[in-house]
């Protein structure tokens, strides 16, 4: 009798119902959480890529448009490596250097997925993109359509988020974020 009266605890039916409810709710909760994280990753990456891409494009545009006086093929920029003084069609390369009005030189070049800014005022080049961001196909070139017109600088680059191993691609659609930038700048001087 003592054993029969002690009816504390759950019946089998109760346990089955509870487990069934948990089995239904947990997967949906996980699916929702997973969806949110995925979306956040995508937005974080695409906005970071866009932020750095905009920064690089603006920096190059402003410095070249406002400061550059002559265009040079290698660093340091001297009178011996001036290019684009005559009418030329664009032949883009991965680096270009400029002299400003105070005879200081500055320039931009691509090396191992990083655009770096070098200048006679800098001890060492400065990387313009952070290490999780990769730059590909950076091409900068100059063209001159007429002898007495100002030169145009063409800039092209692809910027993407590093999905691991210096790659832009991934099997997961939320992981890749690649943007293309291009512009042509008319030099002022």
């Amino acid at each position, binding site marked *: 009798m003592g054993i*029969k*009266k002690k*009816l*504390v605890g759950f019946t089998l039916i109760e346990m089955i119902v509870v487990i069934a409810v948990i089995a239904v*709710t947990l997967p*949906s909760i996980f699916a*929702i959480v997973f*969806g*949110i994280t995925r*979306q*956040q990753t*995508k*937005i974080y990456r*695409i*906005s970071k890529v*866009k932020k750095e*891409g*905009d920064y690089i*494009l603006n920096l190059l545009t402003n410095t070249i448009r406002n400061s550059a006086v002559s265009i040079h093929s290698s660093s340091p920029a001297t009178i011996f490596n001036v290019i684009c003084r005559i009418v030329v069609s664009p032949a883009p390369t991965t680096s270009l250097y400029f002299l400003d009005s105070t005879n200081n030189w500055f320039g931009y070049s691509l090396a191992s997925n990083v655009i770096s800014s070098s200048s006679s005022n800098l001890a060492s080049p400065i990387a313009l993109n952070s290490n999780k961001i990769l730059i590909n196909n950076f091409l900068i070139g100059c063209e001159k*359509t007429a002898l007495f017109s100002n030169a*145009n600088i*063409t800039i092209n680059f692809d910027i993407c988020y590093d999905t691991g191993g210096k790659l832009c691609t991934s099997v997961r*659609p939320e992981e*890749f974020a*690649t*943007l*293309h*930038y*291009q*512009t*042509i*700048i*008319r030099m002022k001087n």
Partner: protein
Amino acid sequence: MVFIKNKFGFSLIEVLVFVTILGLFFVAAVSVTTFSLKNMKINEHKIIATHFAEEGLEWIKSEKEGDWGVFIGKDTSSGSGTSYCLNDLNWSTIGNCGEVYPLGTPSSFKREVSLKNINTPTSEVNIEIIVSWIEGNQTMNIPIKSVVNLWE
């Protein structure tokens, strides 16, 4: 007799109230989550669309740096403006893009530009770029406007 004396369980009303509250809570949580997920998706598309619009504007500006005479010839209308479909960054498609959205991965955006020459002879050109995409059952768009002039 043993079962009747056992009063530790819940009554039907209690269970119903509890299940209702739980159900309401879950419905609210799910609707908030889907709403925020949808919002995040829209924001992602807005970021990408803004980039496409800016890319288009940069291209238009670079076209203007090429040859002003050729550039103002792109507005063939007399005052009302000319539209181009600018999906591929060239002038080959006059008019709107239609219901195709080839830009982006996966393809879901289209880009159109409207040019309008100002003054005679033309000294300024109004540019309006509209990048649009379909979000659920509505069309969303990012318009950006700019003006380029002869002297700048």
